[in-house]
């Protein structure tokens, strides 16, 4: 089992993909830890670094970084929303 990760809007463009599947790395137990793990992939991924204005959803509900993540989850990262 793995997690499905989605990226939207400017973040999708920055990381150059809209989704991927990933086996949860050792030591990654929360959405925030997953974000930090991804941010270390390289230059294109710096948009995910702590301090950047990134929002996250777990299974299609907005969550904080402290939210647990488990195999089978759908995790999404995106900028603050601007609809309406």
């Amino acid at each position: 089992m793995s997690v499905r990760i989605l990226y939207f809007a400017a973040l999708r463009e920055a990381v150059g993909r809209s989704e991927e599947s990933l086996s949860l790395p050792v030591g990654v137990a929360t959405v925030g830890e997953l974000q930090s793990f991804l941010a270390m992939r390289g230059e294109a991924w710096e948009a995910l670094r702590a301090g950047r204005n990134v929002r996250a959803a777990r299974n299609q509900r907005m969550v904080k970084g402290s939210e647990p993540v488990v195999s089978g989850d759908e995790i999404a990262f995106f900028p603050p929303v601007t609809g309406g």
Partner: protein
Amino acid sequence: MSVSVQQADFDVGAEIAALSRGYPEIGAVASFVGLVRNANDGAGISAMSLEHYPGMTEKALEEIVEEARSRWSLNTVRVIHRFGRLEPGDNIVFVGVGSAHRGEAFAACEFIMDYLKTRAPFWKREETPDGARWVDARECDDGAAARWDEIEIRR
């Protein structure tokens, strides 16, 4: 079907009429239409594209409607949000609320818009003379949503 996320335009008059039809106890329908403006942050806008998160979008909007229903006594609620490419003057969003009294209809309608602005996963990309750009979230939208956490419920 109180929430719709769609590419197609909507008929404001028909939506408002539907909010009170069959509910003779409704005395008040408050509604809001958001439109594409021809300028933003000092730049001319020739068009915009709205990206969204299919699946989550509908859930987020339904949760916002449920939250409004728990705060005020509402008979009917309708939310429609478009996605895709839109031009200045085009409709983006419709929120309509039917209630016995106007205070609740107004409060719930504005509440839904304020929450939608910070919680519904839509992102605007504007086409300007200098190229396309993603719209930055406005801090005042966070403030508009946050004030409902403290405000006394108006009836």
